[in-house]
C-alpha cells in the first residue's frame, strides 16, 4: 500500500528508534508499504519513520531495481569523507551539503531476522547514512557544519538557495557588542572599589558617569545591530533581542543605583 510521506515541519517526537524484535507479518507489510511508496514516488529509499512507523527499518531501491531491506542497522565502521549535496523527501525541493563517510560497514537484520553485514561505498553509503538519521530521530540537519546549518535553516524559512547563502554573509557584531557591554558593566563594578581611596572619588564620579552613558549607547547600538542581523538572515529575533536589551538595561540600572548609593 502506498503511504503518505511525512514531510517537514512534522517533528519526529519520541516515536523513533524502535528495535525490530518480531520478524512477522506486520513487519513484512511495513516493508511492502515502504517498497510501494518508494516506487510510487520514484525515490531511492525510505526509512520507516518517513511513513509513520517508529521501527528501525530502512528500504533501499538498488540500481538493478531490487530492494535492500535493512532492519536494526548499526554502522560500526566509517572511513573517508564526502561532502555530497543531498535531498530527501522529508524536505521537498531542498538540498544541503552534508558531511558523510565515504565507506561504511553496517551490521543489520534481514527480513527473517538473520544478522547480515554490508560494506557500502559512495552513493549507497550516503543514502544509508541519510536514512539512518531518521532512525535516530534526526534528519541530515545533524550532519551539516554550522555554516551549512544556518543556510539550510534559511531555506526552510522559504528563502531561495541563493538568498539563503547570500543574506547571512555578515559578521555577528551584535555578539561582540554584547560582550563589550558585559565587560563595561564589570568594569563599572570594579571601579567602585576605588571608593576606598577618597582622593580618587572625584575622578571616579566622572569615570562612572561616562561609563554608564557609554553602556547605554552600546545597548542602543546592540539593539539596532541585532535586529539588522536577524533581518538579513531571515530570522525573527525581535523577542530575544528586546529581552536581551532589557536585561542589560536592568544591569545598567542596578549599576546606576549602586553608584548613586556609594558615590553620589
Amino acid at each position, binding site marked *: 500500500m502506498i503511504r503518505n510521506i511525512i514531510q517537514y515541519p512534522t517533528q519526529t517526537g*519520541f516515536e523513533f528508534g524502535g528495535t525490530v524484535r518480531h520478524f512477522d507479518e506486520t513487519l513484512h507489510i511495513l516493508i511492502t508499504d515502504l517498497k510501494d511508496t518508494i516506487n510510487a514516488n520514484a525515490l531511492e529509499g525510505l526509512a520507516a519513520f518517513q511513513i509513520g512507523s517508529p521501527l528501525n527499518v530502512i528500504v533501499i531501491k538498488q540500481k538493478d531495481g531490487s530492494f535492500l531491506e535493512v532492519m536494526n542497522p548499526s554502522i560500526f565502521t566509517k572511513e573517508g569523507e564526502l561532502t555530497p549535496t543531498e535531498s530527501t523527501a522529508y524536505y521537498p525541493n531542498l538540498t544541503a551539503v552534508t558531511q558523510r563517510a565515504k565507506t561504511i560497514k553496517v551490521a543489520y537484520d534481514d527480513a527473517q531476522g538473520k544478522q547480515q553485514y554490508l560494506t557500502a561505498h559512495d552513493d549507497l553509503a550516503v543514502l544509508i547514512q541519510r536514512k539512518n538519521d531518521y532512525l535516530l*530521530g534526526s534528519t541530515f540537519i545533524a550532519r551539516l557544519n554550522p555554516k551549512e546549518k544556518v543556510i539550510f535553516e534559511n531555506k526552510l524559512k522559504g528563502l531561495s538557495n541563493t538568498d539563503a547563502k547570500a543574506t547571512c554573509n555578515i559578521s555577528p557584531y551584535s555578539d561582540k557588542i554584547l560582550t563589550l557591554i558585559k565587560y563595561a558593566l564589570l568594569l563599572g563594578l570594579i571601579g567602585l572599589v576605588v571608593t576606598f581611596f577618597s582622593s580618587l572619588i572625584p575622578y571616579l564620579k566622572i569615570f562612572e558617569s561616562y561609563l554608564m552613558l557609554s553602556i547605554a549607547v552600546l545597548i542602543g547600538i546592540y539593539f539596532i545591530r541585532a535586529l539588522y542581523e536577524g533581518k538579513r538572515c531571515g530570522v525573527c529575533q525581535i523577542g530575544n533581542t528586546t529581552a536581551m536589551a532589557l536585561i542589560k538595561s536592568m544591569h545598567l540600572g542596578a549599576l546606576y543605583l549602586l553608584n548613586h548609593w556609594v558615590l553620589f
Partner: protein
Amino acid sequence: MARVVIMGGGVSGHTAATFSKKWLGDEHEVVVVTPNSQWNWIPSNIWVGVGQMQKKDVVFPLAPVYEKAGIVYKQALAKAIHPNGKESSDKPFIVIESTKKDSLGQTEELEYDYLINATGPKLNFDATPGLGNGKGQMGTNTVSVCTAEHAIHANLELKQVFEKAKKAKENGTGEKQKILVGTGHGMCTCQGAAFEYIFNIEHEAKKAGVRDMLDIKWISNEAFLGDFGMGGLHMKVGGYAVSSKLFAESLYAERNVEWIIGAHTSKVEDGKIEYELLDGTKHEETFDFAMLIPPFSGVGFKAYDKDGSDITDVLFAPNGFMKVDAKYDAGAYENWKASDWPSTYQNPSFSNIFACGIAFAPPHLISKPMTSPNGTAINPTPPRTGMPAGIIGKAVAHSVCDMIKKGKDAHLHEASMAEMGAACVASAGKGILDGSAAAMTVYPVVPDFEKYPGTGRDTDYTFGEIGLAGHWIKHILHHMFIWKAKLKPGWTFIPE
C-alpha cells in the same frame, strides 16, 4: 537473635549492611565479609586516574564505620557456601578466608540465618590473552581504573605519556602519542567508566598543552556509540528528543576522539591489540597508553550440599553470578520481556539467600545481541552498578529485615530494573570552571516493550545534557555518597 551475613562491602553490600543494621537494631546481628579493608567510591576513580584526586579522596577505612554502626566486620574472602549446613549441623554457613595481615589465609566457618551476596564482580582480565597476567590480575600491557590502586597506576603511566608528548612538541619531532581507551573484550560492561576516563584524559591533555600531540581513540564492544549496555536511549535535549547515539557521536566529534565500535579485543600485547569487528574482520591497533576495562564474571564461589557434593550450579549461573528470581529461559531476543528481570533477588532454591548489585545473574542482555560471522559474541552485558546497585541492596535488606521481624512469609520488597529509573552523571573533564559532565536519566533501565511500545522506555522521564553544571553535580555527588557511606548525620536521607 538472627544473623544476617553480607558478602561484599561495595555500593550494594554496604547499602544492604547499613540499612539492615539500622532496621534490625541490636536485637540481631549483621556481619559483613569483605576482603577489602577500605571502602572505595568507584565512580571517582577516574579522577584518580588523571591525577585530579588522591586515593585518600576516594577511599576510607571500613572498620571504624562498622564499629560505630554495630556491624560485625570480617576482613576476609568468602570462598564457599553450604546452604544446607554440614553432616553434623543443619545450620547453613559460609567458609571465609582471612585477608588480614595478622591472620592471612586462616579459614573460618561463619553460620548465617540470612545471606546476602553482594560481592560485585571478578575483574576477569585473563579472559583476553595479554590483558591479564595469567594469574587473575591485570597484566602489564594496559592499565585500568576499576580500583583505586589501578587508577593510581594509570595516572603514573598517563603522566609519562604526557611527558613524552611535551618533549616531542618541544623538540618539534611531531611524534604523537597514541591513547586507546575502552573495553578489553567483546562481552564487557561498564562502558561508562571508560567513557568518563577518555574524556577526562582529553580534558587533562588540553590543560597540559599536549592535546595536539595525542591521538585519542575509543574502542568498544557497543554496536553503536551511546549504547552504554542499555541498548541506547532517547533523551530530551533542549526540548527535542535525541538518540544517545547522536548525542555521543557529537561529543566524540567535538572532542576530536576517533572511535572503533562493534569490536571484540581478542589479544593484547605490549603496545598493540588485536580485535575482531562485527563483520568478522580482524584488525590491529597500536598504542602508547591503553586503558581497557576487563569483562566481569562471578567471583568463583563454590556451593556444597550437606554431604559435601558440589551444588554450585544450583545457586549460580554458568557465568558465576547468583541465580535469583529471574526468568533464565526467556529464549531468543524477540521473546525477551521486562518481566524476565528479577524483582526480589531471592535465590529460587534457598529462600534465605539473596543477591544484589553485580552479583546477581541477569536473565539476558539489555542491548540487542550481536555476533560476528565467526560466532564471536560482541555486545555489552547489562550494567548493574551505581544507582540500581544501591536501590537493589536497600530493597534486599528490607526484605531480609521483614522476614526476620514478621516471619519467613513476609512480603518481599521489589526493585526490578524494568520498573526502576536511573540517573547517571558521566564526567567529561574535571574543573570548577572548565569541567563538564553528561547528565542522563532513563526510565526504566530495562526497556519494557509491552508497556512502552517502540522504544521500550517512557520518554517523559528521560533527559540528557552536557555541561559545567553536570560536573558540579558529579562533584557534589562524590562528597554526598562518601558522607552517606561513612554514616554521617543524615545519611539515610541521601538517596541511593
